[in-house]
C-alpha cells in the first residue's frame, strides 16, 4: 500500500517530541480552502451603521466568467 505523504508544517526534530497526532497535521495552500479565501473578515456598511460588516463570498458564481487552470480544461 502506498504511504500517504504529509506536507508537515513542523520541523522533524519537533515532531519527535510532540504527540504522534502532530504527524498527521499537514499544510495546505490557503486558496484551496474555501473558508479561508476571504482575506478580510469585516468591512463597513453605512446603511447598516456597521463598522464590522461581515464579508463573505456568494454561494454561487457571480457571473458566467470562470478561470480554469490548463489541466482542468
Amino acid at each position, binding site marked *: 500500500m502506498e504511504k500517504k505523504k504529509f506536507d508537515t508544517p513542523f520541523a522533524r526534530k519537533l515532531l519527535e517530541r510532540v504527540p504522534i497526532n502532530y504527524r498527521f497535521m499537514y499544510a495546505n495552500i*490557503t*486558496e484551496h480552502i474555501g473558508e479561508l*479565501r*476571504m*482575506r*478580510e473578515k*469585516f*468591512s*463597513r*456598511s*453605512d*446603511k*447598516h451603521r456597521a463598522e464590522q*460588516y*461581515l*464579508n*463573505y*463570498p*456568494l*454561494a*454561487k*458564481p*457571480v*457571473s*458566467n*466568467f*470562470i*478561470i*480554469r487552470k490548463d489541466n482542468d480544461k
Partner: protein
Amino acid sequence: MTNKQGAGKDYFILYPFCIPVKGAESSVVYNLQFGQLKEIPNSMNDILELLKKATIKEVKKEIGKASVGTLNEYLRFLLNEGLGFYTNEPERFPRMAYAYQSPEFIKNAVIQYTFNQYPLKPVIAELDNLLCKFLELRIVTDTYSFDALVAAVDYTAGSTLRAIDLIVKNAPQISKEQYFSLYERNKKLKAIVVYNVEEDTTVWERGEKIDFCKEDFGVEAFNRHYPRDIFIVNPDYFMEAQQYNPYYNKKVTIDEHGNIKNCLMHPNSFGNVLRNSIEDTIGKPEFQRLWYAKHDLIEEVNMLATRYAIHVSNNLEQRADGFYTLIK
C-alpha cells in the same frame, strides 16, 4: 436483519441534509452539508421513496423476496457513504423546508466599465440602495490611470457589498505593487484578476494574492458559458434552484455602454443607466421573467438529476406551454 447497526430499528432514513433527486437516467443524492453529489440508480431512489413512509419490514414485503438482497445492498451502501441511518423515530428528523427567501432587491451585479461611457458612482449608489451584496467589476480598457482605478473601487467603501471580484485589463502604466496596494486599501475586495499580461502567474505578497492571466478575456472568456461539469452543491443554491433560476435571480448586469441587462452575453437590454434608474428597470416584469425560469422548467435541463447543482448561463426562450428552451 440487514446489519448490526440496524438491529432493533424499524426505519432507515436519509439525513435531512441528504436529498435524493431523480433524473431520466439515474438519480443523485445531494449531500448539502458536505457539498457532495452521489450518483445512485433510479431503483434506489424508488426504494428511498418507499422507506420515507414505511418500515424496512413493510418495504421488504412490498418489493418481494427476490429484491430483498438488493435492498440490503442499497442500505449498506447508504450507511457506508454516510448518507442515512437506522432509527425507530423517523418523525424526529423532519426534512428541510424547501424555502428560499432573501432580503435584497438585487443580490449580485456584474459591471463592465471603461471609465468614459457612464459614471460609476451613481451606479454603485443605486446598487447600494437595492442592498446588492456581491459585485463583479470588469475594467475592460487599458487606458486608465491608477488614481482612476482607486477612485472607482473606493465608491464601494461603506456600501452593502460583502465581496467584490475585480477583473482588470492590464494597463502597462500600472505596476504589480500598485495592484497590491489597491488590495490593501479596500477590505471588500475578494479577488483581483489582471488579464492580458505577458505571462500567467499568481503573485503572493504579504498573504494577498493576485492572478495575472495571459488570456485576453474580452475576446472569448467573458462570452463563454459557465461549464456544465462544475457542480455547486450547497443548501443556498439548492433551495434557490427549487423556485428560481439561480443564474438570473436577483442579478443585474451593466455593459460598458451602460445598458442594463439580465446577462452581459444577451443582446437585449431593458434600459440604460444614463437615462433610467436601475430600480425602475429591474422592477419591470419582463426584466424579472428569467428570474422565475427555474431549472425544472427548462427543457434539456429538467431531465438531469444534477439540475439543482449546475449553473446554466444560456439565454432562454419561453414556449407557449410555459417551458423554456436553451438558446445556444
